[in-house]
């Protein structure tokens, strides 16, 4: 598989006017020409293959948006090499623009005072989309995201969820090979988030559109992105499958067994009993290779087992463990 995106030692430093605190400091800021360098992205490298869906995750100010802006050619990297679709993004920004779609969660690309459909028509003209393909894409995506009822309404009259759905559809009308999304679900309600996530997962799966998505919301990653790239303080700290992160951290699954009559203490070899409420017993499944069937096999059919609940560790938990361990390791070294 050839990589659609290749990043090698990519860094971005911003020069910022040195600021001094306080009122006197404000005057000092005005007259001095001292600069401080801020690293937004430091020595980051990865390959992204066609058809992947990658979640780019990190706390505020970790350099997520900066990386997206470099990949889309808006910003010039300070060091390293970056290749998107075989081109250097900032040198061939316009050529790349035809083959990528970009959605900025907090920056609308729709014309505020005009009906949604007008922005789409302009998009068709700018990207030279043949009429038949445009009509086909518009119909398909509008149906999937339920846009049809408000295509003729002015953008300013739409809810945030409706607007975001329109933004996403617009970014896909020209069949981009890569779709970049910077915080696409920010500020959306649960229903809208869900619709957007399902749609993106489907586009990735069925159309093979490569998706790169930055987010704060781990649920986005859970639904859309099998692969996770984590950054913190401008550096790459994890790149791999979400599943692998879970396994590496040993975040155990939790199992609850409910009985119709108390079977008494019930220690198992496949799972560790953590609490016993009599009728209800809680276990930890620490080993990834143990399946639920094996555990239930060990419990046996004659104990009056009434109900079973298995809880995957949610992604928030996994990530929290990851950062905690990292910080602890940093404190020791």
């Amino acid at each position, binding site marked *: 598989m050839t990589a659609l995106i290749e990043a090698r030692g990519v860094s971005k430093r911003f020069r910022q006017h040195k600021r001094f605190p306080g009122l006197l400091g404000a005057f000092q800021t005005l007259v001095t020409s001292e600069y401080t360098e801020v690293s937004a992205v430091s020595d980051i490298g990865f390959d992204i293959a066609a058809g992947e869906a990658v979640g780019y995750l990190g706390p505020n100010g970790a350099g997520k948006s*900066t990386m997206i*802006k470099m990949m889309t*050619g808006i910003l010039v990297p300070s060091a390293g090499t970056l290749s998107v679709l075989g081109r250097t993004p900032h040198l061939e920004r316009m050529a790349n623009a*035809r083959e990528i779609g*970009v959605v900025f969660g907090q920056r609308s*690309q729709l014309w505020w005072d005009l009906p949604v459909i*007008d922005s789409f028509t*302009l998009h068709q003209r*700018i990207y030279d989309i043949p009429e038949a393909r445009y009509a086909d894409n518009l119909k398909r995506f509008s149906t999937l995201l339920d846009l049809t009822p408000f295509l003729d309404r002015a953008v300013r009259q739409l809810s945030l969820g409706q607007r975001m759905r329109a933004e996403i559809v617009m970014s896909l009308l020209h069949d981009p090979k890569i779709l970049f999304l910077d915080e696409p679900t920010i500020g959306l309600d649960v229903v809208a988030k869900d619709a957007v996530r399902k749609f993106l997962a489907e586009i990735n799966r069925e159309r093979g559109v490569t998706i790169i998505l930055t987010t704060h919301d781990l649920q986005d990653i859970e639904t859309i992105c099998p692969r996770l790239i984590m950054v913190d303080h401008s550096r790459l700290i994890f790149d791999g499958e979400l599943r692998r992160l879970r396994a590496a951290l040993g975040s155990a699954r939790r199992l609850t067994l409910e009985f119709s009559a108390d079977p008494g203490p019930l220690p198992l070899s496949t799972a560790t009993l953590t609490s016993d409420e009599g009728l209800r017993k809680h276990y930890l499944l620490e080993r990834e290779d143990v399946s639920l069937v094996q555990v239930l096999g060990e419990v046996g059919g004659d104990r009056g087992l009434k109900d079973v609940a298995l809880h995957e560790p949610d992604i928030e938990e996994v990530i929290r463990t990851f950062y905690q361990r990292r910080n602890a390791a940093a404190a020791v070294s």
Partner: protein
Amino acid sequence: MLHRLSILPLLVQMFVKSQMEYRGAFWLDRLAQIVSYGAVLLTIWILLQKFQLLGGWNWPELALLFSFQLLAYAMGASVSFTQLRDLEELVRLGTIDTLLTKPINTWAYLIFSGLNIGYAGHIILAIPVLVWALIAAQVNWSVGTALFFVFSLLSATMVTGSVITMIGATALIWVRSNHLFSIFFGFWELTRYPLNIFPSGIQVVMLTVVPLAYISAVPVAVLLGKPVPLLGDFAAPVALLAGPVLVLIAIAHWRYALSRYQGAGG
């Protein structure tokens, strides 16, 4: 390339359609403009009732200067001013990023998606005054002067658009550009008057670093056969060349500013 240009009228059409969402306010704004510029013209007229001449220019000549400047400014600013004044806001909010990811020239998109039809007010006032002044003032009409009039007006339009573009583009580097626009309008007000009434320091500035003399005082002086300070016989060719040359400089400056763009944060 040519078929790409066909997008530009569509952008204009969309912008006009957007503006018409607020059409009542639109016409009220135009009326306000005509009244405020009319008041400036009236002030000049009142002055001339008392002094007869200003720097050797009589009332019809000053009316020609005023209307030429207003028309060149309106045409140049309609393809630059509001769009580039707002560039500061686009940079601050990061909206410019959405334009940079489109396969279309960013400047062209910015200009035509905001082509300011609001300058209709300036033009409605400028054209009748210009026509009257061209008849009333002593212009030695020939094919040469007629051609000079047309092309110097075009050049003046280009000077306006270029200078505004250069000022606006600084927002890409420094995020702020409005302080430079204040300086621009300070000098721009002076272009309603003949260049020779100002101290030589200001004359030099307006012919070089802030080349606004070319949007009115220089071409109109040439048209009326009046001497132009510092430029002398070169005034006519310089007035014609100023626009195209500044356009080239503005393009280079725009590209440079875009390459220096750092985003406003995030």
